[in-house]
Each structure stands twice: as C-alpha cells, then as structure tokens.
C-alpha cells in the first residue's frame, strides 16, 4: 500500500486554481522527484500535503488516513515534515534551537536525534550556538533539513533544496539524501535541477500549469518526453 496517495488534489490561491486534480502516490522508502517549470504547482503540491493550503480539495491519504483537511500541525504529528522553500529557519533561534524545535512536538523513537543530525552535517555542530542569519545559505539549508528530520518523519518533503546554492554545496546536500533514505524515510523532492533530481529519484512526476504531465522512472523516460512534459508541446 502507498504511504501517501493523492487523488484529484486541487489547490487554490483565492480565485486562482494552482493544482488541477493531481493523482499521485509515494511508496514507503521511495524517493520521488517533482519537476516542472516555475509556477507549475510543485511547491503548492507539497504545501497542500503539509496542510498549508486551506481550501484544497480532493483527497490526501497518508498511511491509510485521510489528512486532506488536517491543519499543518496535525499533519506534522502524523509523520510528514516539510523543508520549506527558502529554508525559513527561525532567525531568533540559534542553530541548535532550530534543530530542537523540529522534534519538540513529536518525540517518537526513530533514527534521528541531535547527535545523528550533527553526524550527518558536522558543520552544524561547529555552529550550533551561532545566530541563524550568520550562516551561509548551504549551512542554513542543512539546518532546515536537519530540523525536519528531528521529528523522525516517515515522509520528508523537500522544496527546492538546491535553490541559490553553489554546485559544490548542492553536491554536499544531495550526498545526505541516500543516508536519509537508508533510514527508511520516504522523500519527495521538488527540484528545478532536472539532472540532479533524476540521479536520486526512484520515480519522477512532471507538473505543467497545475497538471500532472508525466510520470515514470528516470531510466525509462526519454529527453524528448521530459522536454515536452516540462515545456508543453
């Protein structure tokens, strides 16, 4: 059975419809990449799952339980963590406090703890007491991922974790993904960098103007298919 399943998922910003009936599923342990142009609805899809899109319609079922109308705090407690676009660490909290708050409201036994997050991203341990705004973009991204892991989620949603970072930093961050996956965590990545996404994903969904335009395994998809799904015919 799928860990997460969306059926006919629709989302709105006021009168503007951002998602038109998305059918998708994520199996346990799977890594899914969501690709698509700007404004295709990728981030909205993650936000709708995480409970940040009030008024969304259709069904979202997580582990057999409908969560479509749950507020974000309730979704998180069931085991879905979102790494938001732009990292959005809490500037008034130190790095260590940013990590701790990720686990304050969901203290379940699981693979992730402060020590394990520090082992995954050692630079965070060095800078644990630093004021958050003093960290580099890459360090902040690591902290944002660590913060999400601290709740020991069963499903990790990552929104544009490579955005605005140098290639060498992106490589560091992507190197952590297999280790997260190895703990059995399912991952959904929203990513503009198609090559990067294809490397780590088990399956790919491509969005175009709020609709699902392509689904498949990276190896089975041709460049041409992706090009058409991404940009339209």
């Amino acid at each position, binding site marked *: 059975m799928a860990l997460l399943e969306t059926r006919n998922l629709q989302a709105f910003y006021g009168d503007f419809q951002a998602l038109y009936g998305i059918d998708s599923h994520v199996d346990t342990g799977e890594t899914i990449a969501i690709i698509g142009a700007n404004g295709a609805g990728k981030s909205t899809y993650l936000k709708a799952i995480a409970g940040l899109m009030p008024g969304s319609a259709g069904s979202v079922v997580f582990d057999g339980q409908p969560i479509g109308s749950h507020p*974000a705090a309730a979704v998180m407690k069931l085991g879905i963590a979102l790494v938001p676009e732009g990292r959005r660490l809490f500037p*008034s909290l130190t790095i260590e406090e940013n990590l701790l708050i990720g686990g304050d409201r969901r203290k379940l036994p699981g693979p992730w703890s402060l020590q394990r997050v520090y082992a995954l991203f050692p630079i965070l341990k060095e800078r644990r007491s630093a004021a958050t705004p003093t960290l580099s973009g890459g360090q902040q991204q690591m902290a944002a991922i660590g913060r999400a892991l601290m709740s020991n989620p069963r499903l990790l949603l990552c929104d544009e974790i490579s955005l605005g970072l140098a290639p060498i930093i992106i490589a560091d961050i992507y190197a952590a993904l297999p280790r997260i996956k190895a703990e059995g965590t399912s991952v959904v990545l929203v990513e503009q960098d198609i090559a990067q996404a294809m490397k780590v994903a088990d399956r790919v969904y491509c969005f175009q103007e709020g609709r699902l335009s392509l689904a498949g395994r990276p190896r089975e998809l041709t460049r041409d298919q992706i090009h058409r799904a991404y940009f339209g015919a």
Partner: protein
Amino acid sequence: MTGLLDALIQGVLLGGLYALFAAGLSLIFGVMRLVNLAHGDLIVLAAFVILVVAEKLGLDPFAAALVALPVLFAAGFALQYVLLNRTLGRDLLPPLLVTFGLSIIIQNGLLQLFSADSQRLRSGAIETASIALGGGIAIGVVPLLTLLGAVLVIVILNLIFYRTPLGRAFRATSDDLDVAQLMGIDIRRVFATAMGVAFTVIAIAALYLGLRANFDPTSGPARLLYAFEAVIIGGLGSFWGTLAGGIVLGLAQTIGARIDPEWQILSGHLAFLAVLVLRPRGLFPRAQD
C-alpha cells in the same frame, strides 16, 4: 546631594513597578504582535480580583495573589483562545478595536460592581515598613519588594523564553507563523498560553499596584500608558530592556517631582519623547527586525 541620591533610589524603585506593568505588555507584543489596549484595565481588574479574594477568604494580599494566579492564568488563556485569536491576522486594526472595547467593558463593569471609590490592598505593618540606609535616606519595604518582584519576573520570563521548549515555540511563532505550524506548533494554543503567562505577570503587577497606591476602576489607561512607554524606551523584544525602560521612566518621574511636584508625570513623558528622538528603536532593541 542626599536629596538627589534619594530621588535616584526612589526612582529606581518606582521603575520596578513600571517594569511590572510593562512586562506583560512586552510579552504579548513580542509573541503575537498584539497591542493590548486593555492591558492597564486588566491590571486594575486583577487588583480587584486580589482584593475580593483577600476579603472573602480573609487572606493577606500576598496569599490572595497566590490564590488568584492560577485563576488569572486560566482567564488569560480563555480570553485569548476564545476571543483574541479570532482578531489576529494581517490586519492590525481588529485586535486594537477589540482590546479597546474590552478596556471599556472592564472599566464600566468594575464601576458597576465596585463603584468609583478608590480601593487599596491592606497588608498590615509591611505597608509602612522601611529600611533606613543612613544619611536620612530610607527605602520602603513594599517598593523594594516591587523592584525585586520585577527582577524576579524578568529572570523567570527569560528562563521560559530562552531555556524551555515553550519559549522556543514562543519565539518561533513570533518569527514565522507558517513554519511554526510545520513544527507541529498549534499557534492558537501557544498564543493562549502566552496570554496566560502575561496574566500571571499582570496579577503580580496588580498586587504591587494595590499595595503601593490607591486604585479605582478608571486607573487602567494611565497604567497602560506607563507600560507602553517603558516597553518603547527599553526596546521591543527584550525583557531586560523593559526593566531598564521602567527604571528610566521611574527615575524621570521622581527627579521631575523633586524639581516641581507638578512635573512628575510630564517628566516621564519628556524622557519617553527624548528616547524616541535619540534612539527611536529603544535602548536595547532586538538585533533583527
């Protein structure tokens, strides 16, 4: 010389009371950006609650305040959860209007129940007790307890804010509402808890207000003004700044009163204006925002 030293000491002690008025306001604004126009009236309301508890149960005001604390915490939690949470959003006007309305309701409700007579919390000998420092200077025990109470309240608030998961939730919620919810934080509960904590601070402020001075149902707005000035002088977002702001206000009023008794209130406002001109963000502003 003795006169000046005495004014300084009394000013600092008075500042303790203003810091207590201000601490609750500072907390509420810091966590949820809510300017509570009923803050002064809530202090007066809490003073009446303590008065009633003291009279009905035959308790000393300190013991009565202790009894009233959990009741006021619950009242604050409920007020926020049921009423004020509904007013929070992008628009700043609804919470201002609702707390302004609350202020009117409290004042008139108290007038109806207790009449316009001034009241006072009676605590026997401690009210007039003082400690002689020599050189003709003496400090009252109640003013000293007020300042110590203010320092203790601020130490405890700092411990809550910077050493506990609840404090992390307060600060995170203040930083970013959406992401706070992604951390599993129920912001309605966090706001209600913050108001509950503010109400316990209000109860402590009310205790010392009632011990030091007369109060009546219309005393609230002036207390709000002092609290507001202390918060702004100290700089938003810092509890120690709020204490410093209270002390600056207390000093200005006491020194002004020594020059001419009519200048007491005016000097406080002038000090407030001077800080606004010279350091618009207050003496100890928070690093960001």
